[in-house]
């Protein structure tokens, strides 16, 4: 065959360093260029999807630490504020995935996402309000548990 195995492997390792594109130039010669900066420059960035995925996991891990901390430390405005931010965030991102899986069609999708964003904003506001002007989530759970 015209293309040897070693040159395909060389081209593949080249293409890992960003996107290598080939094109045929004006004189009919084969040219190679990068369509995104190669990784040996310190400017490679995550895509929006990759960042979103990362922040979803960061929030999840943070919550796994925060909820036991709230249970152990007890009512604390710092922990309650952190919960008021992270719980709606985690719920919002989770519900976004559910909507993406089950809601189809461009208009219904936009409507569902808009409704979710509004509810998440209200829930966040509600939790912050509850932390500042009422007992806060940790004390609230403790109080609820006194009901026998």
């Amino acid at each position, binding site marked *: *065959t*015209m*293309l040897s195995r070693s040159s*395909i492997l060389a*081209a*593949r390792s080249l*293409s890992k360093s960003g996107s*290598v*594109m*080939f*094109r*045929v*130039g*004006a004189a*009919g010669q*084969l040219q190679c*260029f990068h*369509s995104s900066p190669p990784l040996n420059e310190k400017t490679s960035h995550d895509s929006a999807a990759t960042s979103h995925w990362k922040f979803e*996991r960061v929030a*999840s*891990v943070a919550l*796994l630490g925060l*909820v036991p901390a709230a249970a152990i430390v007890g009512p604390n405005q710092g922990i309650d504020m952190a919960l008021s931010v992270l*719980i*709606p965030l985690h*719920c919002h991102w*989770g*519900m976004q995935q*559910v909507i993406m899986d089950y809601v189809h069609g461009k208009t219904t999708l936009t409507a569902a996402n808009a409704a979710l964003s509004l*509810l*998440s904003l*209200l*829930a966040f*506001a*509600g*939790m912050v*309000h*509850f932390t500042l*002007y*009422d*007992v806060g989530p940790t004390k*609230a759970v403790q*109080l*609820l*548990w*006194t*009901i*026998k």
Partner: protein
Amino acid sequence: GATLARQHMLSRQHTLMRTLVRNGLVCSQPAVAPQSTNALERFASTRADKQAAVARDFFEKNEKSGRPMSPHLTIYSPQLTSMLSITHRGTGIALTCAIYGGSIYLMSAHHGANATDFTTLVEGIKAMQLPAAVPFVAKMAVTFPMMFHSFNGVRHLAWDSGKGFEMKKLYQTGWVVLALAIGTSAPLCI
């Protein structure tokens, strides 16, 4: 002589292009606007357009025909993996509804003519003197989803770091998650 050499070179580059596309190194529609539109590039871009049009027509035709769909959810045998997965989603949705509903309600309860605060509401529920089973069931309804979602969440994070995908591990960790969820929620609700 020269024409033959040029034709030979073009056919070699066509073969190269074809091999590169088939090996996934080049997309058949170049993202950069080609500066020289030779036959090879025009061939590659119209072919992609035609494939997209064929796909669109296929789906439209199928929807118009109104044919029944094969059963899927109703016939697939339930397994630990899928049941735990949908329970993770279900508990997540339930907890979201509870938290969102609760926080929005409590914020609104703080304002208006009959404004109350949380402590007053709890006193009100205590005054109802509910039979002991009711608070226990209500607590379980909140605690079990919370425990299950948290433990299965750890299992999810393990998957995200690449661990635990072997069949045996999936089932072992699955049963552990279920046992932990039930085992921790019951004592917490007494």
